[in-house]
């Protein structure tokens, strides 16, 4: 007899939901979370798309600590001395199940963990799982602190920097060109000031991404998400490329805060937190096996995340994967078979869902970004120069538009532009 039917490692998006599903089905489940409360170690951009969470908690909009409903999508091409922004609003973005909210993980993860606890899951906080206990190659439990605790199935939801997946499924430490580092500050401002600055109604806000000078031309981008009474401002940059940068990431963030396009957004604000976290960005090809004997991987422990420059998504994948992991574990426990073969229902469920389809679809995108450095350098400058020819008026006779624009495009190379566009489309 094992101590528990299931042990879940980590109470982030994936873990709390997996535990909720198991407990709701009457299974005994222990969650071990190294933070002193759920969310204490976690950081995100962040925007949560609602479609996945509403499958588990249809009433989450009334209950969950959500920050602002995102009604403005902004993307900027940022040159050192200019910034070109597209601001998109659409009724389609507001349809239930298609909408999204900004979140802060301290409060959000605590709410998720409370749901699992109310359903009957047991929690240990403040202790990291040090190793998996194995018998004859099969995972049979965990070691945390002084204790060894056994379970028929262990669900690893320990996130992007998992130290356990190598032992679980033989997954080696990922390489620096498949992982990005995120840095973020939470900057406090009054609610009405935020709404005025991003042109949003009460309770609504913006998701804003910056390509180009935010990372000083390196692979990655800047982001700003509006919360109720703060702005989450940060940068995500691919580690291997960032390691060659002249400017360290923390100075990039400081410079970005002073950029004329961003400074007015946070003017008078007070930094209340400075955080860092990694983002897996390699797509389907970098993912480990999702199950082995006695163990399931869900969320970023299995690298389920995409970074498209104009969007980082991982929370909805983690939530859906946590849900399927919990439900498939219940089925495997009921069938009395939690070997890799008994757990394949999980892999099939994910293959049938948006999770693995998206990760397959976007698998070429990280390579496209990394090999297309013009995206972060020449193009923001090209856009700046083109816009300058349109908008800067100094009284000298206006040249025909074609005459001013063609040389600009030539500087980058017409073929380069066409090739990059084509490559980008193929990678999406």
């Amino acid at each position, binding site marked *: 007899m094992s101590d528990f039917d299931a042990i879940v490692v980590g109470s982030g998006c994936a873990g709390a939901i997996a535990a909720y599903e198991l407990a709701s089905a009457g299974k005994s489940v222990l969650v071990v979370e190294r933070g*002193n409360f759920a*969310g204490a170690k*976690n950081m995100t951009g962040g925007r949560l798309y609602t479609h996945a969470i509403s499958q588990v908690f249809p009433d989450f909009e009334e209950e969950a600590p959500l920050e602002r409903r995102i009604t403005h999508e902004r993307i900027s091409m940022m040159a050192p001395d200019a910034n070109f922004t597209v601001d998109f609003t659409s009724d389609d973005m507001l349809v239930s199940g298609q909408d999204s909210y900004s979140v802060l993980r301290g409060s*959000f993860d605590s709410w998720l963990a409370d749901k699992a606890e109310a359903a009957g899951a047991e929690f240990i906080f403040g202790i*990291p799982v040090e190793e998996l206990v194995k018998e004859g190659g099969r995972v049979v439990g965990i070691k945390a602190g002084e204790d060894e605790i056994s379970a028929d199935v262990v669900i690893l939801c320990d996130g992007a920097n998992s130290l356990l997946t190598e032992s679980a499924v033989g997954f080696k*430490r990922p390489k620096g060109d498949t992982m990005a580092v995120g840095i973020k500050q939470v900057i406090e401002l009054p609610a009405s000031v935020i709404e005025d600055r991003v042109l949003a109604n009460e309770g609504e806000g913006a998701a804003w991404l910056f390509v180009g000078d935010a990372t000083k031309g390196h692979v990655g981008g800047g982001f700003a998400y509006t919360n109720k009474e703060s702005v*989450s401002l940060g940068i995500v940059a691919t580690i291997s490329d960032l390691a060659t940068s002249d400017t360290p990431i923390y*100075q990039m963030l*400081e410079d970005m805060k002073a950029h004329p396009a961003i400074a007015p957004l946070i003017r008078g604000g007070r930094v209340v937190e400075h*955080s860092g976290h990694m983002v897996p960005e390699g797509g389907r090809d970098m993912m480990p096996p999702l199950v082995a004997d006695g163990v399931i991987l869900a969320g970023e422990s299995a690298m389920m995340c995409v970074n498209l420059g104009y969007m980082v998504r991982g929370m909805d994948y983690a939530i859906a994967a946590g849900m399927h992991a919990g439900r498939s574990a219940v089925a495997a426990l009921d069938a009395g078979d939690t070997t890799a073969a008994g757990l394949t229902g999980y892999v099939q469920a994910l293959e049938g869902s948006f999770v693995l389809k998206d990760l397959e679809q976007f698998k070429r995108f990280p390579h496209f970004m990394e090999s297309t450095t013009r995206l972060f350098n020449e193009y923001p400058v090209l856009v700046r120069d083109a816009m300058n020819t349109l908008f800067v008026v100094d009284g000298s006779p206006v040249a025909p538009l074609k005459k001013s624009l063609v040389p600009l495009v030539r500087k980058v190379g017409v073929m380069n532009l066409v090739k990059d566009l084509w490559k980008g489309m193929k990678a999406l």
Partner: protein
Amino acid sequence: MSDIKITVNVDEYLALNKFEVDEGRAHIELVEDPDMAEFLKLVRVCPAALYKVDEDGKASFDYAGCLECGTCRIACGGTIVKEWGWPGPTMGVEYRYG
């Protein structure tokens, strides 16, 4: 990197965070005499600015203030980062916002 102007004092930002530093044990350890080229990578990627090179070119690292992101493990786990583990029970950073 010497021509880069560092205008920010990240320590001041870290002071805003809540930390319980595990004084008894360093959860990250570097090899002795780390290769400078590798060390400079960590200077650039660590969001907490814990990898420092002073005016005389001397490298130093302090795990207090670590945000536990794992970036140095990914960047230099095969080279100069010898040990990378989580801080002990209840220790380390505690985000209030996240």
